[in-house]
């Protein structure tokens, strides 16, 4: 058993060889500081602009609206904290959802401790935000709406266009965490009325440690890192040139392959969902069936605990993840699974499988075959299953 089937691409992706090749010279030969005056330094300014341009173009944004950060979490933190501060005089109310990434939720909690008020919108059983509830939550003091483009756990894609239109109509800033969605679904910041957007390179076959925040021209936002004039004085620090080159290369690659890649992933995703639903009893698909990231599959298996499922899959060479408490170090299962209404014990038995372009149908057949055995084995040891069988005799 040497083959590794990597189905955790929502956690991170393999850096594409093309990306690594593009980055390497910027460590060894073209290593200069872009702020320096001499050739090997100053030349990197143009390199950065070129890559910023590629990224801006992929979103329908302007080049100077892309601000590089150290990743998606930093972009989320920046978007929330620095706009809250900049718009404090206008109001102190922020609207977000209950299923955001912790980079958003914990930033909101921090802002609450500073006197801001936050509305956390509910989602329905598929993980979709209720537009009516959003409209009803808007106050004269609302300064920011932050709703993720697509959820990292259950893959549900939000009605971003509608949300953006509502924000625009009420002259409220709209931020979206697109860490999972960028390069998986087409995004245009003007069409969707997006004022700020967070992204991270390592989710799209780029390097780790680099992300960006798109900030629409005209949005007031405070500097998040002080100490230099980089990123139009808004984010100090010598630019991560290899990272930026890697990111630009990864985006160009992802845009080039998006249509074909996602079409193939959707087909495989639906094949995997169908096989699991048909062949493993007492399971539930989490997330929306069609408004869903092309590569996301998330199931709950009743009477099964997630971590033991993951270890068993790992022993068979399959990498996956779960929303069980035991995989997070806390006693509570994933807040996303609880928000879509799953009881605790069913949330503990969740399994997320996120595909990549490299995954084949044969891989998925192997995964389902193994998963069937693993779920049956764990159930045979489960007192909950024992009680269930006795009750239904």
């Amino acid at each position, binding site marked *: 058993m040497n083959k590794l089937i990597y189905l955790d691409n929502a956690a991170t992706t393999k850096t594409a060889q093309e990306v690594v090749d593009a980055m390497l010279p910027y460590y060894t030969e073209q290593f200069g500081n872009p702020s320096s005056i001499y050739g090997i330094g100053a030349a990197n300014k143009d390199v950065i602009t070129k890559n910023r341009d590629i990224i801006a173009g992929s979103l329908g944004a302007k080049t100077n609206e892309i601000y590089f950060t150290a990743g998606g979490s930093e972009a989320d933190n920046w978007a929330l904290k620095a706009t809250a501060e900049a718009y404090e005089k206008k109001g102190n109310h922020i609207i977000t959802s209950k299923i955001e990434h912790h980079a958003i939720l914990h930033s909101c909690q921090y802002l609450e401790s500073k006197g801001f008020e936050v509305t956390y919108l509910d989602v329905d059983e598929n993980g979709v935000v209720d537009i009516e509830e959003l409209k009803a939550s808007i106050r004269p003091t609302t300064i920011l709406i932050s709703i993720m483009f697509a959820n990292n756990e259950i893959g549900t894609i939000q009605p971003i266009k509608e949300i953006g239109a509502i924000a625009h109509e009420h002259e409220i800033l709209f931020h979206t965490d697109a860490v999972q969605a960028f390069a998986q679904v087409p995004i245009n910041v003007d069409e969707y009325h997006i004022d700020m957007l967070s992204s991270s390179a390592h989710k799209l076959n780029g390097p780790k440690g680099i992300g960006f925040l798109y900030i629409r021209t005209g949005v007031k936002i405070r500097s998040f890192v002080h100490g230099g004039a980089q990123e139009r004085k808004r984010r100090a620090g010598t630019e991560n040139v290899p990272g930026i080159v890697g990111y630009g290369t990864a985006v160009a690659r992802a845009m080039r392959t998006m249509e074909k890649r996602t079409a193939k992933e959707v087909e495989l995703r639906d094949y995997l969902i169908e096989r699991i639903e048909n062949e493993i009893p007492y399971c539930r698909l989490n997330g929306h069936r069609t408004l869903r990231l092309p590569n996301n599959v998330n199931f709950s298996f009743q009477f*099964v605990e997630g971590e*033991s499922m993951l270890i068993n899959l790992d022993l068979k060479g399959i990498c996956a993840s779960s929303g069980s*408490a035991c995989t997070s170090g806390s006693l509570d299962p994933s807040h996303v699974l609880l928000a879509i209404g799953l009881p605790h*014990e069913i949330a503990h038995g969740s399994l997320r499988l996120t595909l990549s372009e490299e995954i084949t149908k044969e891989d998925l057949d192997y995964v389902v075959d193994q998963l069937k055995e693993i779920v049956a084995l764990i159930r045979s040891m*489960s007192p909950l299953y024992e009680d269930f069988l006795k009750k*239904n005799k």
Partner: protein
Amino acid sequence: MYTEKVMDHFQHPRNVGEIENASGVGTVGNAKCGDIMRIYLDIDENQVIRDCKFKTFGCGAAIATSSMATELVKGKNIQDALEVTNKAVMEALDGLPPVKVHCSLLAEEAIHAALWDYAEKHDIKIEGLEKPKNDISEDEEDEDEY
């Protein structure tokens, strides 16, 4: 993250199953936290644990500690079985990650709950055994089929 012993007991759990007409059964933990352990004891007339089986809903550590706990109490008389503490189970497994220590506590409690059940059924008192605090029963939460 787990020791070889833990992985061994996780992959090849000893004493999985049920005992019909068991002398004592104890179930502890709750599904909310993600761990439930049920221990079945078959105790002979000399108060020696003749057989012990378990069923566990839980993580790798929960399954491994259940397996090890059943191994440790098997063949012991009920008084000695009380000495099988969570520390003893952990040591026998060459340790557990800090976040998993509660699993070993659950194993100790499950044995105590099964012994308590035995004592109640036979109307005896086991020296040093306190009423288990964490016994759950069928009335907890109904499992909905979907």
